[in-house]
């Protein structure tokens, strides 16, 4: 409020915000899309817990509450990075399947393999498949939806050929590795900790690294990004590599958590990953959204699945509710966006 009246008259737009930094941060947080999804998630958990306290309180309940969404958490974070660049990766389910099978094969061939190495190899394999997607999409100048639909078929075909009709069961993998599937630190499952660390890191990277911000720029307006001199192709390839690596990691987590792998691991999970991102506030046409939001979205989708029966809704109606939730989320986004646009225009009017 230091401007003179005449100065304000010339203002074209919003005055630079005079709010102190902390207030602004709080306001941003309160208005954020992530918070609203998180609140819904808490409500769901609370409702289930009231009906059946075991859902949260018992040690198994607590463990499963955190473990069940772990795989989708990883996939949703990876999917977010790709969607932000105005692409989509429909091949993550097949990448997950390949990596899970690879993990099983690795342990069958080398029972002494340190589990850490399995995680590294799984992620690297996923990254390699992501690289293929990325290169074809970026340099072939072809839509990601089509290409990853194609590679979804191809990668799944490879798992099927490799695995045939066989199955790798718990007894064929070392206990050291399978223990990771349920191991807990301070009651929090190790796999969940790994996933959370990665989701937080990805989200932080997107917000604070140059290349991370460039991903948003690429998705916000790809043509402008080219004119701007941004390395658009490199960024798109990078996004697909990251998504592939996370799907690969999710495959290893799958093997550790379920202890059994066959050729159909991860079938159909790609839609859930996209849905989690959308529910978590990631715009399907790129340019906005956070990995954190997507992770909360993943948590919500998976938790709803296990919580519904507790509040007395039959198994059979779960999917319908998930669908309604997705639609509610995008309608909410639209309402919020319209409100923001109106504010920006009003601000211009007032100036």
């Amino acid at each position, binding site marked *: 409020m230091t401007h003179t009246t005449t100065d304000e008259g010339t203002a074209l737009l919003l005055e630079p915000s005079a709010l102190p930094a902390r207030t602004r941060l709080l306001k941003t947080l309160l208005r954020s899309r992530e918070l609203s999804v998180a609140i819904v998630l808490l409500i769901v958990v609370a409702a289930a817990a009231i009906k059946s306290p*075991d859902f949260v309180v018992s040690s198994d309940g607590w463990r499963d509450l955190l473990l069940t969404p772990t795989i989708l958490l990883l996939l949703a974070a990876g999917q977010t990075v790709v969607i932000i660049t105005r692409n989509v990766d429909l091949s993550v389910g097949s990448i997950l399947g390949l990596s899970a099978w690879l993990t099983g094969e690795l342990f069958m061939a080398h029972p002494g393999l340190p589990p850490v190495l399995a995680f590294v190899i799984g992620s690297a394999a996923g990254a390699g498949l992501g690289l293929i997607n990325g290169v074809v999409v970026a340099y072939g100048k072809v839509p990601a939806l089509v290409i990853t639909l194609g590679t979804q078929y191809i990668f799944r075909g490879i798992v099927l050929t490799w695995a045939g009709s066989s199955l790798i069961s718990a007894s064929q993998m070392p206990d050291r590795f399978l223990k990771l599937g349920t191991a807990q630190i301070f009651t929090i499952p190790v796999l969940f900790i790994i996933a959370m660390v990665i989701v937080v890191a990805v989200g932080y990277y997107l917000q604070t690294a140059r290349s991370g911000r460039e991903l948003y720029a690429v998705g916000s307006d790809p043509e402008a990004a080219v004119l701007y001199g941004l390395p658009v192709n490199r960024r798109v390839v990078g996004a697909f590599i990251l998504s592939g690596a996370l799907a690969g990691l999710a495959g290893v987590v799958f093997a550790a958590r379920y202890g*059994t792998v066959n050729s159909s691991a991860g079938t159909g999970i790609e839609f859930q990953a996209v849905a989690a991102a959308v529910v978590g506030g990631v715009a399907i046409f790129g340019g906005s959204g956070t990995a954190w939001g997507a992770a909360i979205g993943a948590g919500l989708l998976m938790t709803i699945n296990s919580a519904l029966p507790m509040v007395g809704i039959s198994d059979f109606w779960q999917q319908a509710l998930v669908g309604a939730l997705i639609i509610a989320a995008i309608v909410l986004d639209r309402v919020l966006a319209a409100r923001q646009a109106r504010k920006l225009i009003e601000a211009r009017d007032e100036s």
Partner: protein
Amino acid sequence: GKADTGTSSDGESGGSGDKPLSIVFLPKNLGNPYFDASDAGGKKAVEALGGTFSEVGPQTASPDAQVQYINTAAQQHASAIVLSANDPKAVGSALTQAKSSGTKIVTFDSDTEAQYRDLFVNQASPEGIAKAQVDGLAEQIGDSGEIAILSASANATNQNAWIDLMKKDLQADHPDIKLVDTVYGNDDDQTSFDKTAALLKNHPNLKGIISPTTVGIAAAARYLSTSKSKGKVALTGLGTPNQMRKFVEDGTVTEFYLWNPTDLGTLAAYAAAALANGEITGKEGDKFTAGDLGDYTVGADNTVLLGDPTGFNKDNIGDFDF
């Protein structure tokens, strides 16, 4: 009905022996160790008879995917299809067409409606299967308390038949046992695993689970073995020894049941060959020999019965490898 396909004319090879024997095994889905075992038995039998064996099948246990494989086998004029049906009715018209082009139809493991096939090779009588599991679990939990069923898909013919029989058995013989929930793992490992977790969470007083499907019982056992409920919640059902060995040894599971799937495959293959050669027609009273398994007679409803299920526990599980 007169399903006029315009093809019945070129496929009337009937039971003539001039065509080489080719038998197509079509399990519910690939990647299922139970069918691996049965198809292995089938393969050995077909090769012993000097025929060609092939195994085809969909990735997921859905009837529409099975139809395409039935069609292909019919196009190739295979001598016989040995099928475990994903739906008693949905594969019907495809089977009818295949039959009309001269292919014999044998179902095993999971039957279709009787008019669609020539013969059903039954693993064990449904009454026997249901009773073995219910009585087994009742013994383990002291004949009272809450139990639940973890089944395959909601439409699986045999599972649904067994579940109905189990309910009758429970009512008649075990009045203190209460069946509180039936959930479906769709014969998918991950789904079955998550459903087990949900079952335990939703029913804190649960004392036992029956899973009449090999995929389901293995997933449930794996979940139980890592959970606090291990040893407290009894688990039984139908499983293969190789998948369940670990859980029997570590005490998660006391006893489970199954017939020998390899024998089932072998019997189905011999039955199919006998039909294809015109040795039998599938009517009640027909007799044929199934290699080492011995002689079998076709019973009512064009059905051949393999035998009673075996119980596997700590004492005998070491003797089996499938």
